[in-house]
């Protein structure tokens, strides 16, 4: 089984390469993808990745030595396989302690004589009828071409049903994993029954998942793979009335926040809003009582944001992998802190609700959230989220986009500050809002237009009452 690791050809004009550093040593267990060494040519170093697994049994080149491209620089064996190394080869294998010593002997910038113990076996991989081993394969990084669908990490290679490790080339494994194919169901045509790329492609063509092809529309013409399976999104809450287990909340929030920060290209746009009129309005409403008793700025914000979303509909959107989906209704979620974490109850179709209805709905939602009891669609269907920290001395902040929504509005406190009116400095009440947006869905101008509409509505808030 011995597998030769060779000096890779990193360039058409590369004739030899230098082993700079061994990162694995004889006796180490090597898994696919482990970096075994760093090699150098000209002013470039490459991390040499293992394309097979096994135990590193021999290292044939000392650190600092240059060898021709294609020379064997190390050998992998199955655990327990006998080693047939000649004594000379063993002497050439560096030990960790030798490293510094060897380097200080090197003449500056030096190419030294290649290690005498080996003469290169030109391209041993070719003899096996497989692609050259040891050459860093020019595969696209995970997820290429880049699309906004969620691909968090490389899926584990499909384990065959029999539980036995199947022999397959790394490329074959990746293709199979990408398409969710069980390697155990594929016959291998390579040496020792090894499954190679063409075996997997043949299996796909026979009726595994459809082979990758052109995707129309959406992103600029790039061939696309089948989208990766949707990551598990937590169920937003029971559909029938019931008690949400609050211990799940923090776990869910953590997972979603991590995903959002990893996957969403956030950008942030802020605006200062003169809240003088809104303050007067809110105080009048509260004084009115009745339906408006307990009116808060959050209620005004929900209505204002909803109307702004109808005026800039591209912000009321989501991305489904191929196209941007514009929602018909503005369902505004209100980020709410409860003992066990963060929940986002939803006011559906907020643009069409009178302010009084919004006040009532939000009050009910918040009560249910704090009691841990939800019903119906309390927690689902939000197309936009508002997070208001204005009840704290927070001047501004930026929230994390609540996927799959396009944006989230972070609201700070209303502050008494000097403002300029008609060329004179007067006291005024300012509130800073920050829109965090998913740059895959909306761009700066859309975010700015949304904020302009929001600001206009809040600064002349009479329109919000109806």
């Amino acid at each position: 089984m011995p597998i030769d690791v060779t000096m890779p050809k990193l360039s058409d004009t590369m004739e030899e390469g230098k082993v700079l550093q061994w990162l694995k040593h004889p006796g180490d267990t090597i898994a696919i993808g482990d970096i075994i060494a760093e090699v150098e040519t000209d002013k470039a170093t490459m991390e040499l990745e293992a394309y097979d697994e096994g135990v590193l049994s021999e290292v044939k080149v000392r650190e600092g030595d240059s060898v021709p491209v294609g020379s064997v620089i190390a050998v992998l064996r199955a655990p327990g396989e006998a080693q047939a190394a000649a004594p000379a080869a063993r002497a050439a294998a560096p030990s960790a302690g030798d490293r510094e010593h060897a380097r200080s002997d090197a003449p500056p910038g030096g190419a030294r004589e290649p290690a005498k113990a080996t003469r290169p076996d030109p391209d041993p991989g070719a003899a096996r009828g497989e692609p050259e081993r040891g050459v860093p394969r020019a595969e696209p990084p995970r997820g290429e071409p880049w699309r906004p669908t969620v691909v968090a990490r490389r899926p584990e290679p499909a384990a065959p049903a029999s539980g036995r490790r199947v022999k397959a080339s790394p490329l074959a494994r990746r293709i199979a994993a990408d398409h969710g194919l069980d390697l155990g169901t594929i016959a291998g045509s390579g040496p020792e029954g090894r499954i190679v790329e063409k075996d997997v492609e043949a299996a796909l063509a026979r009726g595994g998942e459809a082979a990758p092809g052109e995707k129309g529309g959406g992103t600029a013409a790039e061939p696309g793979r089948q989208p990766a399976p949707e990551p598990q999104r937590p169920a937003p809450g029971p559909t029938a009335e019931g008690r949400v287990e609050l211990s799940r909340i923090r776990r869910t929030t953590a997972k979603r926040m991590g995903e959002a920060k990893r996957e969403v290209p956030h950008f942030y746009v802020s605006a200062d809003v003169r809240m003088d009129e809104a303050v007067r309005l809110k105080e009048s409403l509260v004084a009115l009582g009745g339906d408006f008793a307990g009116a808060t700025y959050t209620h005004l914000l929900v209505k204002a944001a909803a109307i702004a979303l109808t005026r800039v509909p591209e912000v009321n959107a989501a991305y489904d992998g191929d196209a941007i989906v514009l929602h018909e209704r503005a369902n505004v979620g209100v980020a709410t802190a409860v003992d066990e974490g963060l929940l986002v109850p939803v006011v559906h179709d907020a643009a069409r609700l009178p302010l009084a209805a919004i006040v009532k709905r939000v009050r009910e939602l918040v009560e249910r959230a704090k009691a841990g009891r939800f019903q119906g669609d309390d927690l689902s269907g939000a197309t936009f989220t508002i997070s208001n920290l204005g009840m704290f001395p927070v001047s501004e902040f930026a929230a994390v986009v609540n996927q799959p929504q396009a944006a989230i509005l972070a609201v700070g406190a209303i502050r008494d500050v000097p403002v300029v009116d008609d060329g004179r400095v007067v006291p005024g009440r300012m509130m800073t809002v920050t829109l965090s947006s998913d740059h895959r869905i909306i761009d700066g101008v859309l975010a700015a237009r949304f904020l302009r509409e929001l600001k206009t509505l809040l600064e002349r808030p009479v329109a919000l009452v109806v």
Partner: protein
Amino acid sequence: MVLEVATPGRVDYRRALAWQDALVERRLAGGPDTLLLLEHPPVYTLGRGADPRHLGAAAGGRVPVERVGRGGQVTYHGPGQLVGYPILWLGAFRTDVHWYLRQLEEVLIATLGDVRIAAGRRAGYTGVWVEERKIASIGVGLRRWVTRHGFALNVGPDLDGFAAIAPCGIAGVRMTSVAREGGPSDWAAVVPIVARRFAERFGYDAVRPGTERLAS
């Protein structure tokens, strides 16, 4: 294809290393190509295979010394030097590291042409030269064909940091800079030129500012 260009100003060397690692991972996960253009406080760096003797008097001095995963020997980075770290996946271009090094040289040569400095290559000595004086150094690392590290173009007139070492392992090489060759002395002025020439040479359709906040 889009190139993100981030210009974070003066950044500590180690922090920039952490950023590069994060950007490499982001690229491997399918994110865009990025070009970081920045400057460092004074630091000496050694390539993985560099001979530490080239450090000369700089070893054991006040200026920190870092050994990093790039090719090449010892060099100096400091204020007034424009450092560029392209994080690209060469698979979208050519998986050929020598080609990539030549492309970086061409980007810098074109940039210098834009500020009226006639620069060129010297066979066998990767980097950018004005006659026999070295004006830019190059050293890259690759992980699964995603690039890191990159180039350093001397802009400002102060080259004292190079005095102690044998830059790039070449004894007796004379270093020079954009300012010393009659060009602008402010590295920030060169930044947009480099970004434009870089995007042209690699054929990007669009350039956008890096908006990700790079966490260390």
